[in-house]
């Protein structure tokens, strides 16, 4: 993995993207993906102005809309995939809830002297169960996508081919790809359909934030510790586009996670190890420089002990 990848905190209120772009030495055009904003994809004036008017929006959301409007067979296959995914997620959630309840309960426990080994064995077993539930689900989701790929063969469809060719033409002139947040699954599926990462290649850098950072990871994990309904169980939802490895991005972590709850922090860190669970709040930044991950000051990761530590520490 030699491509430079920079993951940054949310950009709406405290944008830092222009500083990142400067630090990468990018002086030319910047390709932008705002497909996570869905029908608001084109409302990218602020982003464009922030970068001095040199963005080229790849119009990923609109391109997929165009493809769907002209290829009803593909739409049918996409709907079939969506139905299968929905069912898979529903069944996964049922198993996951029980597995996580057990893991949380055991991680909360303190063993009496002389019984520490027994508790530790059960804690590790509970974590193995959670990881097994995650892994099984991920396999099933991969299978569903593979079924879709085999049936739909997007790369052979004329509308898809046309848009991929256009993307190649637009991205050729750009020095940097930046991927904004929004609806992570919409973004993920649309980037995948157009195979944007292959089009972009591996020689030029990528900057991503929020859902953009999540979609580009190896695994897409949805999370919120304090939703108004339910337990707030983080879900390993889908395989990501795997533009990078070794980091699980957690945008808006301070708002979404109970970072003072050692059990929850510990569970997250241990469940998704060896990936580092990195909190991506405003002004944070973590960068793969081609050889290792480097965190800007204040960028933190969850530890297996239930604390937070600087990424570079």
């Amino acid at each position, binding site marked *: 993995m030699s491509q430079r990848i920079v993951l940054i905190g949310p950009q709406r209120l405290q944008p830092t993207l222009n500083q990142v772009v400067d630090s990468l030495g990018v002086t030319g055009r910047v390709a932008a993906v705002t497909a996570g904003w869905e029908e608001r994809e084109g409302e990218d004036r602020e982003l464009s102005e922030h970068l001095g008017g040199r963005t080229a929006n790849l119009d990923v959301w609109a391109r997929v809309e165009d493809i769907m409007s002209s290829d009803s067979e593909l739409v049918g296959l996409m709907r079939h995939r969506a139905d299968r995914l929905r069912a898979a997620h529903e069944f996964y959630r049922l198993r996951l809830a029980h597995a996580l309840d057990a893991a949380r309960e055991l991680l909360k426990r303190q063993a009496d002297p002389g019984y520490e080994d027994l508790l530790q064995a059960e804690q590790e077993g509970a974590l193995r169960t959670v990881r097994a539930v995650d892994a099984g689900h991920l396999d099933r989701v991969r299978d569903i996508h593979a079924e879709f790929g085999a049936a739909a063969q997007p790369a052979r469809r004329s509308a898809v081919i046309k848009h991929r060719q256009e993307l190649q033409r637009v991205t050729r002139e750009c020095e940097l790809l930046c991927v904004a*947040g*929004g609806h992570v699954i919409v973004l993920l599926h649309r980037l995948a359909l157009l195979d944007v990462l292959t089009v972009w290649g591996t020689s030029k850098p990528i900057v991503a934030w929020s859902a953009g950072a999540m979609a580009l990871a190896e695994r897409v994990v949805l999370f919120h510790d304090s939703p108004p309904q339910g337990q707030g169980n983080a879900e390993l939802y889908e395989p990501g586009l795997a533009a990078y490895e070794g980091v699980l991005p957690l945008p*808006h972590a301070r708002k979404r996670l109970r970072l003072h709850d050692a059990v929850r922090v510990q569970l997250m860190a241990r469940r998704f190890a060896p990936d580092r669970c990195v909190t991506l709040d405003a002004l944070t930044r973590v960068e793969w420089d081609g050889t290792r991950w480097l965190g800007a000051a204040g960028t933190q990761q969850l530890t297996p002990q239930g604390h937070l530590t600087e990424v570079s520490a």
Partner: protein
Amino acid sequence: MNTLAQEAEYQARRGPQAFDAWLAERSVPIVDGRSVTFVWRGEADEVLLRHWIHGLVGGLPFHRVHGTQVWLLSIDVPEGSRVEYKLEVARWGERRLLADPLNQHAAADPYGANSVVHGHGYTPPEWILPDSEARAGELRTHHLHSQAFGGERRVQVYLPARFRTTRRYPLLVVHDGEEYLRFAAFKTVLDNLIHRLEIPSMVVALTQSPNRLEEYADDPRHARYLVEELVPELERLYPLVQKPSARGLMGASFGAVASLSTAWRHPGYFGNLLLQSGSFVFTDIGNHDRGPLFDPVVKFVNSFRKHPGRPTEHLYMSCGVYESLIYYNRSLVPLLQKSGMTVKFSESHDGHNWENWRDRLREGLSWLYPGPLFMVYE
């Protein structure tokens, strides 16, 4: 008498200055765990606590600390309670109802304002306060002619921030919309919950009745107005998801009766009901004791209990345990559940008031209309 009340009495006996100094370090009423001590200072023949806690003796008397103008009353209040009250002060044969001058917490309603005790464990939710990060929605006013009522009706429509005509939105119709806006911070709550992704961006119609006690009491004209006039007009004006699963109806007190009765008269039209402290008075035998305004309500609820049908798909109901209506609301739950609807019932240590209804909005709205919280990361 608890320790804190004894301490208050001791300080009062030490004289006004000592008591002032002691009191200045505390919020009044003084909350110490479950114990709440009310304080009144001044000349009076009698001081009573007037509250709206059903089942508790009305008009609880303060006792005067001998030789002082300090009056004290201590009561036990369960964890997480919110209690609205006034002080009744008798002097020279006159009785006056007053807001507690020593208490900074007050709650407004259409009839004025009450003082409020925040019991141990109760804090006002943070999502009722304006959030500078939350984008603000917009209120538009419409007037439409109602054939059902034979006159003009005013409705305010809440459009979420970043509203656009190219997408479709769920619709929630609210009874007593202006009161929800004024006394339950409803616009701020909608802005915040949408911003937090806890509910989807939605269109909310805030309706108002010039004669709610009549029109909300199972009046067929009202149901007709909502189903045949208001919603079709809104669906013409705005990009709405025109399906029962995306339509909701809500209200409090008589507004909850109007919501249920409309859904009952038009089963399946609204997929979601949010009923707060519904005035669902019924009788199993004989007449009710609520006065003639409740006659049509009781008739409706009795009929509903006999033939509930399946008015909606998802029903969220809440009631305060300090309300007399808690008995009726609790009693309806098993019946509602048996009808095949998905029902969630929530109780709070609160009374029949707008802040109780405000505090339940997050739970009710996010249960009926789950937002894209797990899916969207901006």
